[in-house]
């Protein structure tokens, strides 16, 4: 694959999306290779373009990668969305509408997950909404680690693409042919397999890990990733046990008596030593000791529940229905180009 000189220079600064958005930039950016498509159904894949002045074109389809490329160069869309592969060419759908049956239906679509950093607002104090910093972005990276491992080891998928969604999170695209053929019900089942955080805005305790032991998937996630991340990074970077914030943790303990027992222990610290150890670490250790002392049978999994509450991936449960369009920002194309650059060299 060729990468010309001009593009090489742009690739050096992949994160730069110019302020004054000029369609000429687009022409240049798009003058390269993008992910090749499987020829057998490329013509039935829906794309939608958002053009300058917010003109929105749906049901675009192309018979080849070259056609897609030239259409992009000609129209210079500011935003591209990718939809499913339909049973017939989307641009010819009206011809089939008369027959009355549902001939125009989506038939294949990658398995997609969406993780949004703003869904973690109740457990991060550094930022909120669309803001992200180096303290809270690791929540994304561990989410990726856990899901990626499970998609490969548990579900046997191998063609997995993770991309920054351009605003405040990541998208996961599973492109195995087995994944593309999944029904909505099967997609929902996978999403539910991953789901631990339950309950809408109005439920207080949202992670409930019943049972004497954890399912192997959760156990592996906890032991390999979440425990260390919580103990070594998150509780420090977010100061989870500071006086203003520790109450939130106590709220996750279902037994009020135990919660006050822990609270009292924490208060006791103040008077004692000038310990070198960070207060967050100390308090966490004390909490663990109390909860795991074996005295409180009902709280067997409470420590894990707390860790999961703060760190476990939160999937956007607006499960991807097959017909939805997913935005592909300019970033993804740049990322693709960037990858190619690294693979093939200058």
């Amino acid at each position: 694959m060729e990468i010309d000189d001009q593009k090489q220079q742009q690739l050096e600064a992949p994160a730069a999306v110019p302020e004054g958005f000029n369609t000429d930039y687009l022409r240049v950016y798009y003058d390269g290779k993008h992910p090749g498509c499987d020829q057998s159904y490329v013509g039935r894949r829906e794309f939608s373009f958002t053009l300058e002045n917010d003109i929105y074109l749906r049901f675009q389809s192309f018979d080849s990668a070259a056609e897609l490329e030239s259409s992009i160069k000609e129209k210079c869309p500011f935003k591209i969305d990718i939809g499913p592969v339909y049973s017939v060419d989307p641009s010819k759908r009206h011809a089939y509408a008369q027959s009355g049956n549902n001939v125009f239906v989506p038939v294949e679509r990658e398995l997609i997950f969406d993780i949004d950093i703003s869904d973690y607002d109740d457990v991060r104090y550094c930022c909120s909404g669309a803001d992200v910093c180096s303290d809270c972005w690791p929540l994304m990276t561990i989410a990726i680690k856990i899901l990626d491992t499970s998609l490969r080891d548990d579900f046997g998928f191998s063609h997995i693409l993770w991309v920054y969604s351009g605003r405040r999170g990541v998208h996961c695209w599973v492109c195995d042919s087995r994944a593309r053929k999944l029904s909505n019900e099967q997609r929902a089942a996978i999403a539910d397999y991953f789901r631990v955080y339950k309950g809408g805005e109005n439920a207080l305790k949202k992670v409930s890990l019943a049972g004497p032991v954890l399912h192997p998937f959760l156990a592996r996630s906890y032991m390999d990733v979440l425990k260390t991340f919580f103990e070594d990074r998150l509780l420090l970077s977010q100061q989870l046990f500071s006086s203003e914030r520790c109450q939130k943790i106590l709220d996750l303990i279902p037994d009020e008596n135990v919660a006050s027992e822990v609270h009292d222990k924490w208060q006791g610290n103040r008077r004692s030593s000038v310990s070198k150890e960070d207060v967050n670490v100390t308090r966490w250790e004390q909490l663990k000791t109390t909860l795991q002392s074996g005295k409180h049978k009902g709280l067997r999994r409470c420590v894990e529940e707390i860790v999961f509450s703060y760190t476990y991936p939160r999937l956007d449960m607006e499960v991807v229905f097959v017909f939805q369009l997913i935005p592909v920002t300019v970033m993804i194309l740049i990322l693709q180009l960037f990858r190619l650059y690294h693979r093939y060299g200058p």
Partner: protein
Amino acid sequence: MEIVRSHRQVAAAAAAAGGGGGAGALPTYKAAPQLEVRLEEFELFAIDRLRVLKGISDGLSRGKRPEEMEKLVSELWKTHMRHQDPAETLNKDIVSHFVLRLVYCRTEELRKWFLSMETTLFRYRFRLESPESQRMLMTEFQLPYKALPHSEFEAVKDKLSQVARSIGQSANVEHVFFKVPFEEVPDLVASRRVFLSKGYAYVAMSQVVSLVVTQFRCNISKALALTNRKWTATIKEQEKDRLTPIVEALSNAYFGPDYSQPKDAVDISLKDIDQLAKSSFPLCMRHMLDKLRENHHLKHGGRMQFGLFLKGAGLKLEDALAFWRAEFSQKIGSERFDKEYAYTIRHNYGKEGKRTDYTPYSCQKIISATPGVGDHHGCPFRHFGEENLRAALNKMGVGGHALEEIMDKVKNRHYQVLYFIAIGLTEQYDIPELTGLSGIMKYTASLHINL
């Protein structure tokens, strides 16, 4: 199936026909049996089976656990379907199923309901069968899964034990496992009741029910679509003097009002919404309206549940678009609204895509929703924590003794009836906000009692 007025053949024929199961007790309804059925039986058998299905529907709405459902199904079957002569039972079983297929094949909503109830019925009847009978049924469903060979079993034994324990079962009890592609057992995957490795689920014999039921569901679903085509194409006309009136009467008598054409309700318009919310909306809808006004946004689950409710209450498409646009545009601008959300609203009204005219959700569906982060849909009686529910009810004007009665019902998970108790009790205790039920409220009432 021949419907005649004269004598009927004894059900020995039923057992011999394709409708029967291998073990004779649990039919799989693969093919319409070659039977002669009396016209009276046509209707009576169907009604009895419908009682069973309705009982199941009620049990599901109340959130009964699997063990309770199993008991319920057994009782319902005994009460309405069992006959002294097992051959007679089988006959009635098969006939009633096929008659109800005719009744419930005619619209998407009817098909969904019938499929759901028949599948549930089958699931629990299967659980009640003996192991040999279950094995024979598996074969009949052509589940080509072979039991895991010993060596493979040994390799994953620990993980299988771990899964068993994680779902509250004893470890090392099951020894027969099947290795099945995960796509085939979505419910087991979703609830993490199986060990997964490289795309395969390790399913215990006891879980095989799930496999069988998925197949059953698939078969019935296809059969319903086929029946619908046949009905529309030939049967309805052919039978217009005989069976058709019975079929139509059956579905009208038991399915309740047609939600897209409410008889008593007054169509609501845009300006009515806030006022009606205070006086007549169910708690779940009021809550979503409050949140929508507060955040100028609702996530997908909320948009569907609330949007369809408004539609069912008679809000016209233009008003609906104006309503949602007025709120959303305060957060994201009207252009983005038009681009990203208007389509779905028109879709719900049957103006896009498949052009299905969606109907509002039943309580059962709302209760069984699974709201996640940032969601406000679902049933407050089920999905709110205790404090939040109390607060919400207080805001509605329910307090004191009435409130305690409600919280007690919540503990016993009588979600669907709760809203009515709330209304009833508040009338009893004379809270002005809720007296004088409007037409909308009565209509909402009918929505809540559906099925």
